[in-house]
């Protein structure tokens, strides 16, 4: 009753506006709070370019790699991911190599990049300028499949990837570390000309097993088909097609906004790429 004793029409109108604004804000907050998980997406088209240089010193192969990727994110294509990798492989015996690499990458997206900054929208944080450091240990088994007609090779690559980066996002400025076990079995078929590989086709399953985050067992896996044309002894290039399946799990921001709630959503894409490999043997 007391509330309705407002006497002045002039002072009554701002109160209605303020009330309406508060209602809209609260409604928005409520709607956002209950629909903040990212949506499953895909299949989208993505693009990737890779160039590698191998310099072979007997059983030691030094490698440098540059990669860029145009990804589907926040409802559109975005060129965020770029990386440079350097390191070497040591051939221990014919069918076994060990490798160690360092990678500097920008633009990688992780679970915690699903954020809700001081706007009304949730989105994937733009990480294009965020440097990440990746230490990689590699063990690769290769076996010729001589019992199959033609020239076939089986390969099993296992990598431990330790990623660390500093995220300067406003409320949790801190370092993150991600440990991943990558397992990639595959087969390659080589078409030989004059005794040397001329064209090879490769089919691989590439699985990423998170060791200190979710979801398990794989947070991402790829089915990969690639072709390499060995134009000369030193240059090979060719297209790749990969079916990508990633699973995003609950971000820190989401946990803060909706305590006790979790999500797992999927991102599926078809990635079309071009790979160029240079091989030198001084």
């Amino acid at each position, binding site marked *: 009753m007391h509330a309705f004793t407002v006497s002045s029409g002039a002072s009554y109108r701002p109160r209605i506006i303020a009330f309406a604004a508060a209602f809209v804000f609260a409604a928005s907050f409520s709607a956002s709070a209950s629909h903040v998980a990212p949506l499953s997406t895909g299949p989208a088209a993505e693009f990737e370019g*890779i160039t*590698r240089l*191998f310099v072979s010193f*007997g059983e030691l*192969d030094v*490698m440098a*790699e540059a990669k860029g990727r145009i990804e589907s994110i926040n409802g559109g294509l975005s060129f965020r991911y770029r990386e440079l990798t350097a390191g070497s*492989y040591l*051939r221990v015996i*014919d*069918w076994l*190599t060990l490798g160690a690499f360092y990678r500097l990458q920008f633009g990688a997206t992780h679970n915690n990049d699903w954020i809700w900054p001081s706007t009304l929208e949730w989105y994937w944080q733009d990480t294009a300028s965020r440097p990440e450091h990746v230490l990689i240990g590699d063990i*690769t088994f*290769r*076996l*010729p499949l001589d019992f199959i007609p033609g*020239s076939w*090779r089986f390969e099993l690559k296992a990598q431990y990837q330790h990623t660390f980066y500093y995220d300067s996002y406003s409320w949790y400025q801190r370092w993150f570390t991600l440990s991943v076990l990558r397992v990639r079995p595959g087969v*390659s078929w*080589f078409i030989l000309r*004059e*005794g*040397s*590989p001329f064209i*090879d086709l490769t089919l691989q399953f590439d699985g990423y097993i998170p060791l200190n985050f979710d979801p398990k067992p794989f947070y991402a896996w790829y089915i990969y088909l690639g072709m*390499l044309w060995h134009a000369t*002894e030193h240059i*090979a290039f060719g297209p790749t097609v990969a079916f990508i399946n990633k699973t995003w799990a609950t971000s820190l921001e989401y946990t803060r906004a909706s305590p006790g709630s979790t999500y797992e959503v999927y991102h599926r894409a078809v990635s079309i790429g071009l790979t160029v*490999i240079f*091989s030198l*043997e001084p």
Partner: protein
Amino acid sequence: MRYMILTLLLTVSLSAAETAVINYQSAYGAIERAGGRTERSSVNAPLSEGDTVRTLASTMVIEFSGGSRLKLTENSAVTLSAIRNERRIALLAGSVFAKVAKLSGGAAFEITTPNVVAAVRGTEFFFGFGREKDLWLCVNEGAVHVASSAAKREQTVKQGEGVFILGGTDITAPKPYGWTKKLNWNMDAEKGDVREKGAIKSAYDMQRKNYD
């Protein structure tokens, strides 16, 4: 009597000029004599025309009079079809390195397979089987003339080049092959390891090569 001794000396001298001996072996192999008898190989064992040498797990070097040498890699076999003025070695299995001293006029040094003849004069080269019937030949010094009777093709392979002979018949154009840099050309045990470490496997390098 003096005439008889001279004749005998000449005979011995001629015989020595026409023989070959095993100069080095890392382990024993086998010699199948032309007469059919098989015996264990040994260093300084003389070899005669028609003998077949099998290295088994050994690496062997055969030295011919005049200084030419033939290194046989593991699991190789050759028959010394002719070892006089014209030397003809039939490669039955595996691979060989040949270091051929300069030959006098009319002399020849040939390595043969059923369809291919590699003829040389004053040169150093490798010739061997790869997978199944594939053959590889590469030249370290001088030049080698290769002819395939089955494909009716001929090539002259120069220093630093090699050819691939698909199925042992069809000869490709000569070109440098990176894997041949790994071949062990040494035939002198006093200068280092004579054994070949299987570089020919890396001719089929797919199972070894890194692509990512």
